Protein backbone atom coordinates (compact mmCIF):
# COMPACT_ATOMS: atom_id res chain seq x y z
CA UNK A 1 0.00 0.00 0.00
CA UNK A 2 2.75 2.33 0.86
CA UNK A 3 4.21 2.99 -2.52
CA UNK A 4 1.08 3.86 -4.44
CA UNK A 5 1.99 7.20 -5.80
CA UNK A 6 1.87 9.64 -7.88
CA UNK A 7 2.16 10.61 -11.54
CA UNK A 8 -1.39 9.59 -12.39
CA UNK A 9 -2.66 11.56 -9.46
CA UNK A 10 -0.81 14.64 -10.47
CA UNK A 11 -2.48 14.36 -13.82
CA UNK A 12 -5.82 14.03 -12.14
CA UNK A 13 -5.27 17.39 -10.55
CA UNK A 14 -4.62 16.19 -7.06
CA UNK A 15 -2.38 18.09 -4.86
CA UNK A 16 -0.38 15.61 -2.98
CA UNK A 17 2.74 17.26 -1.95
CA UNK A 18 5.09 14.89 -0.28
CA UNK A 19 7.58 16.92 1.62
CA UNK A 20 9.33 14.23 3.54
CA UNK A 21 11.72 12.28 1.44
CA UNK A 22 12.08 9.01 3.21
CA UNK A 23 15.32 8.26 1.44
CA UNK A 24 16.98 11.33 2.85
CA UNK A 25 16.92 10.70 6.58
CA UNK A 26 19.03 12.45 9.14
CA UNK A 27 18.04 15.87 8.10
CA UNK A 28 17.67 18.07 11.19
CA UNK A 29 14.60 16.98 13.15
CA UNK A 30 11.31 18.67 12.43
CA UNK A 31 10.31 18.64 16.08
CA UNK A 32 12.87 19.08 18.78
CA UNK A 33 11.98 19.09 22.47
CA UNK A 34 14.73 19.74 24.95
CA UNK A 35 14.36 19.62 28.72
CA UNK A 36 10.66 20.39 28.69
CA UNK A 37 9.22 20.94 32.16
CA UNK A 38 5.69 21.88 33.08
CA UNK A 39 3.86 22.34 36.36
CA UNK A 40 0.28 23.15 37.20
CA UNK A 41 0.63 24.97 40.48
CA UNK A 42 2.43 22.61 42.82
CA UNK A 43 1.84 19.63 40.54
CA UNK A 44 4.87 18.76 38.41
CA UNK A 45 3.41 17.21 35.30
CA UNK A 46 6.41 17.07 32.99
CA UNK A 47 10.07 17.05 33.89
CA UNK A 48 12.96 17.15 31.51
CA UNK A 49 11.28 15.69 28.45
CA UNK A 50 13.57 15.26 25.46
CA UNK A 51 12.23 14.16 22.12
CA UNK A 52 13.22 14.54 18.49
CA UNK A 53 10.94 13.73 15.63
CA UNK A 54 12.11 13.59 12.04
CA UNK A 55 9.87 14.86 9.29
CA UNK A 56 7.66 12.04 8.10
CA UNK A 57 8.14 9.99 11.21
CA UNK A 58 5.35 8.45 13.27
CA UNK A 59 5.96 8.57 17.00
CA UNK A 60 3.88 6.89 19.67
CA UNK A 61 3.70 8.13 23.25
CA UNK A 62 2.73 5.45 25.67
CA UNK A 63 2.40 5.62 29.43
CA UNK A 64 0.00 5.42 32.30
CA UNK A 65 -2.93 7.74 32.83
CA UNK A 66 -2.15 11.17 34.16
CA UNK A 67 1.53 11.14 33.33
CA UNK A 68 1.31 14.22 31.14
CA UNK A 69 0.91 12.93 27.61
CA UNK A 70 -1.95 15.25 26.75
CA UNK A 71 -0.09 18.11 28.35
CA UNK A 72 2.86 17.42 26.08
CA UNK A 73 0.63 17.39 23.00
CA UNK A 74 -0.90 20.70 24.10
CA UNK A 75 2.59 22.16 24.17
CA UNK A 76 3.37 20.71 20.75
CA UNK A 77 0.16 22.23 19.43
CA UNK A 78 1.08 25.63 20.84
CA UNK A 79 -1.98 25.70 23.09
CA UNK A 80 0.12 25.65 26.22
CA UNK A 81 3.67 26.72 26.98
CA UNK A 82 6.30 24.88 28.89
CA UNK A 83 7.84 26.29 32.06
CA UNK A 84 11.30 24.98 31.20
CA UNK A 85 13.15 23.84 28.14
CA UNK A 86 12.77 24.59 24.47
CA UNK A 87 10.45 23.42 21.75
CA UNK A 88 11.36 24.08 18.16
CA UNK A 89 9.39 23.24 15.08
CA UNK A 90 11.75 23.54 12.14
CA UNK A 91 10.84 25.85 9.29
CA UNK A 92 9.71 24.22 6.12
CA UNK A 93 8.90 25.51 2.70
CA UNK A 94 5.58 23.76 2.55
CA UNK A 95 3.99 25.40 5.49
CA UNK A 96 2.74 28.41 3.59
CA UNK A 97 0.40 26.54 1.29
CA UNK A 98 -3.18 27.69 1.41
CA UNK A 99 -5.44 25.33 3.28
CA UNK A 100 -2.57 23.44 4.73
CA UNK A 101 -1.84 23.78 8.35
CA UNK A 102 1.46 23.17 10.06
CA UNK A 103 0.13 21.42 13.13
CA UNK A 104 -3.30 19.85 13.51
CA UNK A 105 -4.48 18.37 16.76
CA UNK A 106 -7.00 15.64 17.29
CA UNK A 107 -7.93 16.04 20.94
CA UNK A 108 -8.59 13.27 23.39
CA UNK A 109 -12.26 14.32 23.43
CA UNK A 110 -13.84 14.61 20.01
CA UNK A 111 -14.83 18.26 20.57
CA UNK A 112 -17.29 18.26 17.71
CA UNK A 113 -19.22 21.51 17.79
CA UNK A 114 -22.78 20.40 18.61
CA UNK A 115 -24.39 23.12 16.51
CA UNK A 116 -22.57 22.15 13.33
CA UNK A 117 -23.30 19.25 11.05
CA UNK A 118 -20.57 16.68 10.49
CA UNK A 119 -19.78 18.38 7.19
CA UNK A 120 -19.40 21.80 8.78
CA UNK A 121 -17.42 20.43 11.68
CA UNK A 122 -14.92 18.92 9.30
CA UNK A 123 -14.76 22.17 7.36
CA UNK A 124 -13.81 24.28 10.40
CA UNK A 125 -10.09 24.42 9.71
CA UNK A 126 -10.65 25.18 6.04
CA UNK A 127 -12.92 28.08 6.94
CA UNK A 128 -10.16 29.49 9.07
CA UNK A 129 -7.81 29.20 6.11
CA UNK A 130 -10.39 30.99 3.97
CA UNK A 131 -10.56 28.24 1.41
CA UNK A 132 -13.28 29.05 -1.05
CA UNK A 133 -16.52 27.18 -0.56
CA UNK A 134 -16.41 24.88 -3.56
CA UNK A 135 -12.97 23.52 -2.84
CA UNK A 136 -13.84 23.32 0.84
CA UNK A 137 -16.86 21.12 0.23
CA UNK A 138 -14.98 18.95 -2.18
CA UNK A 139 -12.16 18.32 0.22
CA UNK A 140 -14.55 17.74 3.09
CA UNK A 141 -16.50 15.15 1.13
CA UNK A 142 -13.40 13.32 0.02
CA UNK A 143 -12.33 13.18 3.64
CA UNK A 144 -15.71 11.99 4.85
CA UNK A 145 -15.64 9.26 2.25
CA UNK A 146 -12.29 8.21 3.54
CA UNK A 147 -13.49 7.78 7.11
CA UNK A 148 -16.76 6.23 5.98
CA UNK A 149 -19.03 9.07 7.07
CA UNK A 150 -20.25 10.49 3.77
CA UNK A 151 -23.79 9.37 4.49
CA UNK A 152 -23.71 11.31 7.72
CA UNK A 153 -22.46 14.57 6.29
CA UNK A 154 -25.68 16.34 7.22
CA UNK A 155 -26.07 14.74 10.63
CA UNK A 156 -25.51 16.58 13.88
CA UNK A 157 -23.01 15.21 16.41
CA UNK A 158 -25.71 14.06 18.82
CA UNK A 159 -26.91 11.68 16.13
CA UNK A 160 -23.57 9.89 15.89
CA UNK A 161 -22.16 7.01 17.87
CA UNK A 162 -18.94 7.43 19.80
CA UNK A 163 -16.88 5.77 17.10
CA UNK A 164 -18.42 7.87 14.36
CA UNK A 165 -17.71 10.98 16.37
CA UNK A 166 -14.04 10.14 16.65
CA UNK A 167 -13.87 9.43 12.92
CA UNK A 168 -15.42 12.82 12.26
CA UNK A 169 -12.83 14.41 14.52
CA UNK A 170 -10.08 12.59 12.64
CA UNK A 171 -11.46 13.82 9.33
CA UNK A 172 -11.48 17.37 10.68
CA UNK A 173 -7.78 17.14 11.58
CA UNK A 174 -6.77 15.54 8.30
CA UNK A 175 -8.66 17.80 5.93
CA UNK A 176 -6.27 20.67 6.59
CA UNK A 177 -3.45 18.44 5.33
CA UNK A 178 -1.25 19.10 8.31
CA UNK A 179 2.48 18.85 8.20
CA UNK A 180 2.39 17.54 11.77
CA UNK A 181 -0.60 15.65 13.10
CA UNK A 182 -1.01 15.24 16.85
CA UNK A 183 -3.43 12.54 17.95
CA UNK A 184 -4.50 11.96 21.53
CA UNK A 185 -5.82 8.41 21.88
CA UNK A 186 -7.47 8.74 18.49
CA UNK A 187 -8.89 5.27 18.08
CA UNK A 188 -9.64 4.29 21.65
CA UNK A 189 -13.39 4.52 21.08
CA UNK A 190 -13.49 2.34 17.99
CA UNK A 191 -14.24 -1.35 17.80
CA UNK A 192 -11.21 -3.40 16.87
CA UNK A 193 -12.29 -3.92 13.27
CA UNK A 194 -12.84 -0.25 12.53
CA UNK A 195 -9.71 0.52 14.45
CA UNK A 196 -7.54 -1.56 12.18
CA UNK A 197 -9.24 -0.03 9.15
CA UNK A 198 -8.41 3.41 10.50
CA UNK A 199 -4.83 2.29 11.11
CA UNK A 200 -4.57 1.29 7.48
CA UNK A 201 -6.05 4.60 6.35
CA UNK A 202 -3.74 6.61 8.53
CA UNK A 203 -0.75 4.73 7.16
CA UNK A 204 -2.03 5.32 3.63
CA UNK A 205 -2.32 9.01 4.18
CA UNK A 206 1.04 9.01 5.79
CA UNK A 207 2.58 7.18 2.86
CA UNK A 208 1.09 9.60 0.36
CA UNK A 209 1.68 12.89 2.16
CA UNK A 210 4.69 12.07 4.25
CA UNK A 211 2.97 13.74 7.16
CA UNK A 212 4.64 13.66 10.55
CA UNK A 213 2.53 12.20 13.34
CA UNK A 214 2.76 12.04 17.11
CA UNK A 215 0.10 9.98 18.79
CA UNK A 216 -0.77 8.97 22.32
CA UNK A 217 -2.02 5.49 22.96
CA UNK A 218 -2.48 3.01 25.74
CA UNK A 219 -2.50 0.20 23.24
CA UNK A 220 0.86 -1.51 22.75
CA UNK A 221 -0.29 -3.28 19.59
CA UNK A 222 -1.41 -0.01 18.09
CA UNK A 223 1.92 1.56 18.93
CA UNK A 224 3.88 -1.21 17.24
CA UNK A 225 1.64 -1.39 14.17
CA UNK A 226 1.79 2.32 13.48
CA UNK A 227 4.90 3.88 14.88
CA UNK A 228 8.47 4.31 13.76
CA UNK A 229 9.39 4.77 17.38
CA UNK A 230 7.68 4.48 20.72
CA UNK A 231 8.41 6.85 23.57
CA UNK A 232 7.70 5.32 26.93
CA UNK A 233 6.46 7.70 29.60
CA UNK A 234 6.91 7.30 33.32
CA UNK A 235 4.65 9.19 35.71
CA UNK A 236 5.10 11.65 38.55
CA UNK A 237 6.61 13.69 37.10
CA UNK A 238 6.03 12.71 33.50
CA UNK A 239 9.21 12.00 31.60
CA UNK A 240 10.36 9.81 28.76
CA UNK A 241 12.29 6.85 30.09
CA UNK A 242 13.01 5.06 26.86
CA UNK A 243 12.60 5.49 23.15
CA UNK A 244 12.13 2.19 21.35
CA UNK A 245 12.58 2.18 17.58
CA UNK A 246 10.26 -0.05 15.59
CA UNK A 247 12.11 -1.02 12.47
CA UNK A 248 9.67 -3.31 10.75
CA UNK A 249 8.50 -3.11 7.18
CA UNK A 250 4.96 -1.93 6.56
CA UNK A 251 2.26 -3.07 6.40
CA UNK A 252 2.68 -4.77 9.73
CA UNK A 253 0.40 -7.65 10.45
CA UNK A 254 -0.37 -8.97 13.88
CA UNK A 255 0.14 -12.41 12.37
CA UNK A 256 3.76 -11.57 11.61
CA UNK A 257 6.14 -13.13 14.11
CA UNK A 258 8.45 -10.13 14.14
CA UNK A 259 5.56 -7.87 14.97
CA UNK A 260 4.29 -10.00 17.83
CA UNK A 261 7.84 -10.31 19.08
CA UNK A 262 8.18 -6.53 19.13
CA UNK A 263 4.85 -6.20 20.92
CA UNK A 264 5.89 -8.69 23.55
CA UNK A 265 9.19 -6.97 24.10
CA UNK A 266 7.50 -3.58 24.41
CA UNK A 267 5.00 -5.00 26.90
CA UNK A 268 7.96 -6.22 28.88
CA UNK A 269 9.47 -2.74 28.88
CA UNK A 270 6.26 -1.30 30.21
CA UNK A 271 6.78 -4.06 32.82
CA UNK A 272 3.71 -3.69 34.98
CA UNK A 273 1.64 -2.76 31.94
CA UNK A 274 -0.41 -0.21 33.85
CA UNK A 275 -2.91 0.28 31.07
CA UNK A 276 -3.93 -2.87 29.32
CA UNK A 277 -5.51 -2.17 25.99
CA UNK A 278 -9.29 -2.22 26.10
CA UNK A 279 -10.68 -5.70 25.59
CA UNK A 280 -11.37 -6.32 21.93
CA UNK A 281 -15.04 -6.79 21.31
CA UNK A 282 -14.91 -8.87 18.22
CA UNK A 283 -18.34 -10.23 18.94
CA UNK A 284 -19.94 -6.83 18.50
CA UNK A 285 -20.82 -5.85 14.95
CA UNK A 286 -18.49 -3.38 13.38
CA UNK A 287 -19.15 0.28 13.90
CA UNK A 288 -21.33 1.47 11.06
CA UNK A 289 -21.83 -1.96 9.57
CA UNK A 290 -21.11 -2.06 5.90
CA UNK A 291 -18.46 0.54 6.29
CA UNK A 292 -16.07 0.22 3.47
CA UNK A 293 -13.03 2.33 3.43
CA UNK A 294 -11.81 2.67 -0.06
CA UNK A 295 -8.14 2.30 -0.61
CA UNK A 296 -6.43 5.55 -1.18
CA UNK A 297 -6.44 5.91 -4.90
CA UNK A 298 -6.82 9.61 -5.31
CA UNK A 299 -4.62 10.93 -2.58
CA UNK A 300 -6.25 12.37 0.46
CA UNK A 301 -8.53 15.23 -0.03
CA UNK A 302 -7.19 17.18 -2.89
CA UNK A 303 -8.57 15.18 -5.75
CA UNK A 304 -10.27 17.48 -8.17
CA UNK A 305 -10.81 20.12 -5.54
CA UNK A 306 -8.62 22.75 -6.95
CA UNK A 307 -9.96 25.36 -9.30
CA UNK A 308 -6.83 25.02 -11.38
CA UNK A 309 -5.92 21.40 -11.81
CA UNK A 310 -2.47 20.05 -12.16
CA UNK A 311 -0.85 21.88 -9.31
CA UNK A 312 2.77 21.00 -9.46
CA UNK A 313 4.35 18.78 -6.94
CA UNK A 314 6.74 20.67 -4.88
CA UNK A 315 10.28 19.56 -4.57
CA UNK A 316 12.18 20.07 -1.43
Amino acid at each position, binding site marked *: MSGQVLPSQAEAGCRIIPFADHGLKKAPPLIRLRGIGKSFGPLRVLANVDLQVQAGEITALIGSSGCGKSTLLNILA*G*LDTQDHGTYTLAESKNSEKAGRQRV*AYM*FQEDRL*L*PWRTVRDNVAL*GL*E*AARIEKKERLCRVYNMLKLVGLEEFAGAFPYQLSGGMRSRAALARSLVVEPEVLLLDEPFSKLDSQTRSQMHAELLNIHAVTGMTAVFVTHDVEEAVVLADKVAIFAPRPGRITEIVPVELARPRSLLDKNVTEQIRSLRGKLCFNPHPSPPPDDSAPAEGAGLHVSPLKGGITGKGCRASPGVKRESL
Partner: protein
Amino acid sequence: MKLSVQVARRLLLAALVLAVWWAASSRVPSFVLPGPYAVLQAFSSLLHTPTFLQDVGATLARVGIGFFLAAAAGTALGVVMGASRALADFLEPVVAVFNTVSSAIWAVFAIIWFGLSDASTVMVVFMTTMPLMLTSVWNGTKTVDKQYVELAKSFNLSRLQILAKIYVPTVLPSFFAGARLAFGFGWRVSLVAETIGASSGIGYRLRQAADLIQSSQVFAWTILLIMFMLLIEAGVLKPLENALFRWKPSPE
Protein backbone atom coordinates in the same frame (compact mmCIF):
# COMPACT_ATOMS: atom_id res chain seq x y z
CA MET B 1 -54.79 8.89 15.68
CA LYS B 2 -52.70 10.67 18.26
CA LEU B 3 -53.37 14.04 16.72
CA SER B 4 -57.12 13.49 16.61
CA VAL B 5 -57.14 12.53 20.27
CA GLN B 6 -55.32 15.74 21.06
CA VAL B 7 -57.74 17.82 19.00
CA ALA B 8 -60.70 16.16 20.67
CA ARG B 9 -59.23 16.91 24.07
CA ARG B 10 -58.76 20.56 23.23
CA LEU B 11 -62.29 20.86 21.87
CA LEU B 12 -63.65 19.27 25.02
CA LEU B 13 -61.75 21.75 27.16
CA ALA B 14 -63.00 24.69 25.09
CA ALA B 15 -66.59 23.45 25.33
CA LEU B 16 -66.23 23.06 29.08
CA VAL B 17 -64.85 26.57 29.53
CA LEU B 18 -67.61 28.02 27.38
CA ALA B 19 -70.29 26.16 29.33
CA VAL B 20 -68.96 27.30 32.68
CA TRP B 21 -68.59 30.85 31.38
CA TRP B 22 -72.12 30.86 30.00
CA ALA B 23 -73.58 29.39 33.19
CA ALA B 24 -71.74 31.88 35.38
CA SER B 25 -72.59 34.88 33.22
CA SER B 26 -76.31 34.12 33.24
CA ARG B 27 -76.26 34.42 37.03
CA VAL B 28 -74.55 37.82 37.42
CA PRO B 29 -75.07 41.27 35.90
CA SER B 30 -73.41 41.61 32.51
CA PHE B 31 -71.03 44.42 33.56
CA VAL B 32 -69.48 41.97 36.02
CA LEU B 33 -69.21 39.08 33.61
CA PRO B 34 -70.55 39.43 30.07
CA GLY B 35 -71.73 36.25 28.38
CA PRO B 36 -69.99 34.61 25.40
CA TYR B 37 -72.44 36.03 22.90
CA ALA B 38 -72.10 39.59 24.14
CA VAL B 39 -68.33 39.26 23.92
CA LEU B 40 -68.56 37.90 20.39
CA GLN B 41 -70.64 40.92 19.39
CA ALA B 42 -68.21 43.28 21.05
CA PHE B 43 -65.38 41.50 19.23
CA SER B 44 -66.91 41.96 15.82
CA SER B 45 -67.76 45.61 16.45
CA LEU B 46 -64.20 46.08 17.70
CA LEU B 47 -62.82 44.81 14.40
CA HIS B 48 -65.00 47.35 12.61
CA THR B 49 -63.99 50.32 14.73
CA PRO B 50 -62.21 52.86 12.49
CA THR B 51 -59.34 53.36 14.94
CA PHE B 52 -58.81 49.63 15.48
CA LEU B 53 -55.82 49.18 13.20
CA GLN B 54 -54.29 52.44 14.40
CA ASP B 55 -54.49 51.32 18.00
CA VAL B 56 -53.04 47.91 17.33
CA GLY B 57 -50.35 49.47 15.15
CA ALA B 58 -49.45 52.06 17.79
CA THR B 59 -49.05 49.44 20.51
CA LEU B 60 -47.11 47.11 18.26
CA ALA B 61 -44.74 49.89 17.24
CA ARG B 62 -44.09 50.90 20.86
CA VAL B 63 -43.48 47.32 21.96
CA GLY B 64 -41.36 46.65 18.91
CA ILE B 65 -39.14 49.69 19.35
CA GLY B 66 -38.76 49.23 23.10
CA PHE B 67 -38.01 45.55 22.71
CA PHE B 68 -35.57 46.10 19.86
CA LEU B 69 -33.63 48.73 21.80
CA ALA B 70 -33.66 46.52 24.89
CA ALA B 71 -32.42 43.51 22.95
CA ALA B 72 -29.60 45.52 21.40
CA ALA B 73 -28.53 47.18 24.65
CA GLY B 74 -29.05 44.05 26.75
CA THR B 75 -27.05 41.90 24.37
CA ALA B 76 -24.20 44.38 24.16
CA LEU B 77 -24.04 44.78 27.93
CA GLY B 78 -24.41 41.05 28.49
CA VAL B 79 -21.52 40.32 26.15
CA VAL B 80 -19.36 42.99 27.76
CA MET B 81 -20.14 41.67 31.23
CA GLY B 82 -19.43 38.15 30.03
CA ALA B 83 -16.08 39.24 28.65
CA SER B 84 -14.93 41.23 31.67
CA ARG B 85 -15.22 39.72 35.08
CA ALA B 86 -14.35 43.00 36.78
CA LEU B 87 -17.06 44.93 34.97
CA ALA B 88 -19.58 42.20 35.71
CA ASP B 89 -18.84 42.33 39.42
CA PHE B 90 -19.09 46.11 39.30
CA LEU B 91 -22.42 46.25 37.45
CA GLU B 92 -24.17 43.28 38.99
CA PRO B 93 -25.98 45.27 41.75
CA VAL B 94 -27.40 47.63 39.14
CA VAL B 95 -28.88 44.71 37.26
CA ALA B 96 -30.34 43.33 40.45
CA VAL B 97 -31.94 46.68 41.26
CA PHE B 98 -33.37 47.06 37.76
CA ASN B 99 -34.85 43.59 38.01
CA THR B 100 -36.72 44.43 41.19
CA VAL B 101 -38.24 47.77 40.17
CA SER B 102 -41.89 47.28 39.26
CA SER B 103 -43.01 48.18 35.76
CA ALA B 104 -45.72 50.39 37.31
CA ILE B 105 -43.01 52.53 38.87
CA TRP B 106 -41.31 52.89 35.51
CA ALA B 107 -44.66 53.91 34.07
CA VAL B 108 -45.04 56.65 36.64
CA PHE B 109 -41.55 57.93 35.95
CA ALA B 110 -42.21 57.74 32.23
CA ILE B 111 -45.20 60.03 32.56
CA ILE B 112 -43.23 62.46 34.65
CA TRP B 113 -40.41 62.49 32.11
CA PHE B 114 -42.18 62.10 28.79
CA GLY B 115 -45.85 62.88 29.45
CA LEU B 116 -48.54 61.32 27.29
CA SER B 117 -46.44 60.13 24.39
CA ASP B 118 -45.07 57.12 22.55
CA ALA B 119 -41.81 57.57 24.39
CA SER B 120 -43.44 56.78 27.74
CA THR B 121 -44.51 53.31 26.69
CA VAL B 122 -41.26 52.65 24.85
CA MET B 123 -39.34 53.57 27.96
CA VAL B 124 -41.37 51.26 30.18
CA VAL B 125 -40.94 48.37 27.76
CA PHE B 126 -37.23 49.09 27.52
CA MET B 127 -36.68 49.35 31.26
CA THR B 128 -38.46 46.12 32.06
CA THR B 129 -37.11 43.98 29.21
CA MET B 130 -33.52 45.20 29.02
CA PRO B 131 -32.43 43.56 32.31
CA LEU B 132 -34.03 40.32 31.18
CA MET B 133 -32.08 40.32 27.93
CA LEU B 134 -28.89 41.31 29.69
CA THR B 135 -29.17 38.54 32.26
CA SER B 136 -29.93 35.89 29.65
CA VAL B 137 -27.05 36.84 27.37
CA TRP B 138 -24.67 37.24 30.27
CA ASN B 139 -25.55 33.77 31.53
CA GLY B 140 -25.12 32.48 28.01
CA THR B 141 -21.56 33.78 27.80
CA LYS B 142 -20.75 31.80 30.92
CA THR B 143 -21.58 28.56 29.13
CA VAL B 144 -18.94 28.98 26.41
CA ASP B 145 -16.83 25.82 26.47
CA LYS B 146 -13.12 26.49 26.83
CA GLN B 147 -12.39 23.25 25.00
CA TYR B 148 -14.11 24.59 21.90
CA VAL B 149 -12.13 27.81 22.08
CA GLU B 150 -8.98 25.73 22.32
CA LEU B 151 -10.09 23.70 19.32
CA ALA B 152 -10.64 26.88 17.35
CA LYS B 153 -7.20 28.13 18.31
CA SER B 154 -5.64 24.88 17.19
CA PHE B 155 -7.12 25.58 13.76
CA ASN B 156 -5.75 29.12 13.81
CA LEU B 157 -9.14 30.81 13.86
CA SER B 158 -8.83 34.56 14.41
CA ARG B 159 -10.39 36.22 17.44
CA LEU B 160 -13.23 37.47 15.30
CA GLN B 161 -13.81 34.01 13.88
CA ILE B 162 -13.81 32.52 17.37
CA LEU B 163 -16.39 35.10 18.37
CA ALA B 164 -18.58 34.31 15.38
CA LYS B 165 -18.13 30.56 15.21
CA ILE B 166 -17.88 29.58 18.90
CA TYR B 167 -19.29 32.34 21.08
CA VAL B 168 -22.33 33.35 19.03
CA PRO B 169 -23.70 29.83 18.55
CA THR B 170 -23.17 29.08 22.23
CA VAL B 171 -24.95 32.20 23.39
CA LEU B 172 -27.75 32.01 20.83
CA PRO B 173 -30.04 29.66 22.78
CA SER B 174 -29.85 31.88 25.86
CA PHE B 175 -30.39 34.93 23.71
CA PHE B 176 -33.42 33.34 22.14
CA ALA B 177 -34.91 32.21 25.46
CA GLY B 178 -34.32 35.69 26.86
CA ALA B 179 -35.86 37.37 23.84
CA ARG B 180 -38.94 35.22 24.03
CA LEU B 181 -39.41 35.95 27.72
CA ALA B 182 -38.69 39.63 27.25
CA PHE B 183 -41.05 40.03 24.32
CA GLY B 184 -43.96 38.49 26.22
CA PHE B 185 -43.13 40.62 29.19
CA GLY B 186 -42.76 43.79 27.16
CA TRP B 187 -46.07 43.18 25.47
CA ARG B 188 -47.87 42.91 28.80
CA VAL B 189 -46.23 45.90 30.46
CA SER B 190 -46.85 48.03 27.40
CA LEU B 191 -50.59 47.75 28.09
CA VAL B 192 -50.07 48.82 31.69
CA ALA B 193 -48.02 51.75 30.48
CA GLU B 194 -50.60 52.73 27.88
CA THR B 195 -53.44 52.72 30.38
CA ILE B 196 -51.81 55.66 32.11
CA GLY B 197 -49.28 57.14 29.72
CA ALA B 198 -50.82 57.20 26.24
CA SER B 199 -53.71 58.62 24.25
CA SER B 200 -53.88 55.81 21.75
CA GLY B 201 -53.13 52.10 21.62
CA ILE B 202 -54.68 48.99 23.05
CA GLY B 203 -53.97 49.87 26.66
CA TYR B 204 -55.60 53.25 26.19
CA ARG B 205 -58.75 51.63 24.73
CA LEU B 206 -58.84 49.20 27.63
CA ARG B 207 -58.76 52.08 30.02
CA GLN B 208 -61.59 53.78 28.15
CA ALA B 209 -63.65 50.61 28.25
CA ALA B 210 -63.03 50.32 31.98
CA ASP B 211 -64.09 53.94 32.56
CA LEU B 212 -67.33 53.30 30.66
CA ILE B 213 -67.75 49.90 32.35
CA GLN B 214 -67.84 48.14 28.98
CA SER B 215 -66.81 44.73 30.25
CA SER B 216 -67.56 43.01 26.97
CA GLN B 217 -65.08 45.36 25.24
CA VAL B 218 -62.38 44.42 27.73
CA PHE B 219 -63.08 40.76 27.11
CA ALA B 220 -62.94 41.27 23.36
CA TRP B 221 -59.52 42.92 23.60
CA THR B 222 -58.29 40.19 25.89
CA ILE B 223 -59.30 37.50 23.43
CA LEU B 224 -57.62 39.42 20.64
CA LEU B 225 -54.40 39.70 22.61
CA ILE B 226 -54.40 36.02 23.49
CA MET B 227 -54.93 35.11 19.86
CA PHE B 228 -52.15 37.42 18.81
CA MET B 229 -49.67 35.92 21.27
CA LEU B 230 -50.59 32.38 20.26
CA LEU B 231 -50.12 33.34 16.64
CA ILE B 232 -46.66 34.76 17.31
CA GLU B 233 -45.72 31.70 19.32
CA ALA B 234 -46.90 29.19 16.74
CA GLY B 235 -46.22 31.20 13.61
CA VAL B 236 -42.89 32.85 14.42
CA LEU B 237 -41.19 31.68 17.57
CA LYS B 238 -41.67 27.93 17.31
CA PRO B 239 -40.61 27.63 13.65
CA LEU B 240 -37.68 29.94 14.28
CA GLU B 241 -36.61 27.91 17.27
CA ASN B 242 -36.94 24.66 15.35
CA ALA B 243 -34.84 26.03 12.52
CA LEU B 244 -32.18 27.54 14.75
CA PHE B 245 -31.78 24.67 17.18
CA ARG B 246 -32.07 21.60 14.99
CA TRP B 247 -28.74 20.54 16.44
CA LYS B 248 -30.21 19.94 19.87
CA PRO B 249 -31.34 16.44 20.66
CA SER B 250 -35.10 16.48 21.15
CA PRO B 251 -35.99 15.99 24.80
CA GLU B 252 -38.10 12.85 24.32
